[in-house]
């Protein structure tokens, strides 16, 4: 980088173009619901706060706890929602949670072919690629090719198990604990657990992590 500042013009912040069809529809429905007193503006604002409070850091804490505490891991695999609730993570959307453990025999991958079902209570909003049709279609038809594009090569003697979310059940992948982390504490381990490891597109690694 030669210069000390960026000299390209900044994009204008604000709406330069007229709203699109769905934007207008969303505004109209929202205003109608408020006008008919079915919901209030405060409820909408509150729900945005709820969503903002959910990030992959929550899921990472769950995974790290499962890595260090065998009893918690067993409870998490038996009933994902109850185990997360016991850690203080609420399921505001009343979905169930199945936690999928990656092993040396099975690699799990999650997708929602119909839309964008995602374990929002524990991970927050999904990445854009998760909602786009190429990922949604290819994750169930050629998962190994999709994984390879993320740099993840799964040997043929390991089962790739794809989980398609449909209605009330959400999934969270429990990645394998990286080798060489035996002495790490829960907080250090949580830092290794990224969003993509819990979707199942990459393994958890210690590669680029500072100690």
């Amino acid at each position, binding site marked *: 980088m030669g210069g000390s500042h960026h000299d390209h013009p900044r994009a204008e912040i604000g709406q330069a173009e007229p709203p699109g069809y769905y934007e207008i529809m969303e505004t109209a429905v929202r205003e109608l619901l408020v006008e008919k007193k079915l919901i209030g503006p405060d409820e909408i604002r509150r729900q945005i706060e709820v969503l903002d409070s959910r990030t992959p850091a929550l899921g990472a804490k769950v995974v790290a706890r499962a890595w260090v505490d065998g009893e918690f891991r067993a409870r998490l695999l038996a009933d994902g929602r109850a185990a997360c609730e016991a850690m203080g993570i609420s399921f505001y959307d009343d979905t169930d949670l199945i936690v999928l453990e990656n092993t040396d025999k099975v690699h799990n991958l999650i997708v929602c072919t119909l839309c964008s079902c995602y374990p929002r209570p524990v991970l927050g909003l999904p990445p854009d690629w998760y909602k786009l049709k190429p990922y949604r279609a290819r994750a169930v*038809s*050629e*998962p190994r090719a999709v994984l390879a594009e993320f740099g993840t090569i799964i040997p*043929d003697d390991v*089962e*790739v*198990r794809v989980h398609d979310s*449909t*209605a009330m*059940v959400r999934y969270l992948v429990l990645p394998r604990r990286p080798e060489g982390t035996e002495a790490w504490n829960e907080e250090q381990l949580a830092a290794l657990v990224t969003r993509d490891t819990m979707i199942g597109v990459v393994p958890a690694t210690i590669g680029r992590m500072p100690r």
Partner: protein
Amino acid sequence: MPGLGVVLALGEAPIFRPGDRVRVLARAPIGHYRVPLYLRGKQGVVERVIEPAAIDNEAEGYGRNAGLKRHYYRIAVPMKVIWPNYPGSPLDGLRIEIFETWLERM
């Protein structure tokens, strides 16, 4: 518990049990249904019954039978069954949850 003579209401107990072979119905009703097209008509195995029974969001979404609950199953389908020319390992498989109304016994 046997011997009590208790009669369950229709639909109260799940029809399928883990290990049962089932086929996803190939119905094509008009509207949005949460059974992906790529699985309709495919055969799989019940892996588990999702408890408790869940609100049938398909009926709910269309304003019918509000509050009706249906049994909901986790189904395992091998990739080779879904895609005859599947390029990956024959071990690979899919899991999905499907309501009882979309399943028939093989």
